[in-house]
């Protein structure tokens, strides 16, 4: 079931069950987070890797982009740890 439609009501109640509603909210939040994250990665990696747009992506531009995505994910992990695993 996609996260935007409501499930059929159960046991005669007039709306979605609490649990189904909670699942829907979680799914929508996860999707919104993923979209925002991807948009940030696109922006960062475009500015780092595509300095002179040509008529196609060169091999070095493609590998730069791959590394950039990995590094940005790693940076997110490092920041998370810095804030929550060893606060001063």
């Amino acid at each position, binding site marked *: 079931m996609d996260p935007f439609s409501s499930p059929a009501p159960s046991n005669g109640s007039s709306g979605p069950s609490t649990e189904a509603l909670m699942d829907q909210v979680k799914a929508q939040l996860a999707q919104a987070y993923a979209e925002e994250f991807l948009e940030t990665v696109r922006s960062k990696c475009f500015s780092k890797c595509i300095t002179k747009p040509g008529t196609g992506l060169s091999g070095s531009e493609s590998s730069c982009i791959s590394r950039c995505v990995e590094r940005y994910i790693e940076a997110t992990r490092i920041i998370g740890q810095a804030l929550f695993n060893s606060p*001063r």
Partner: protein
Amino acid sequence: MENSAELQRFLEEEKQKAMVSEMVGKITNVCWDKCITGTPGSKFSSSESTCLTNCAQRYMDMSILIMKRFQSMQ
């Protein structure tokens, strides 16, 4: 109704989690620009990863300081 209290708790918890994610996202955004100055490599240098850690913690220190200054001006 029980459902309503459970939902309230759930929504409050999800709100907190979303605020934390947003903060981590914002700080990663800012600290990437400060610390990763060259072309991304296949791993971070130790100065890059140290910079990221320091940056995150200094950003939080700054945030607390700003709140204090702001409150003392009310």
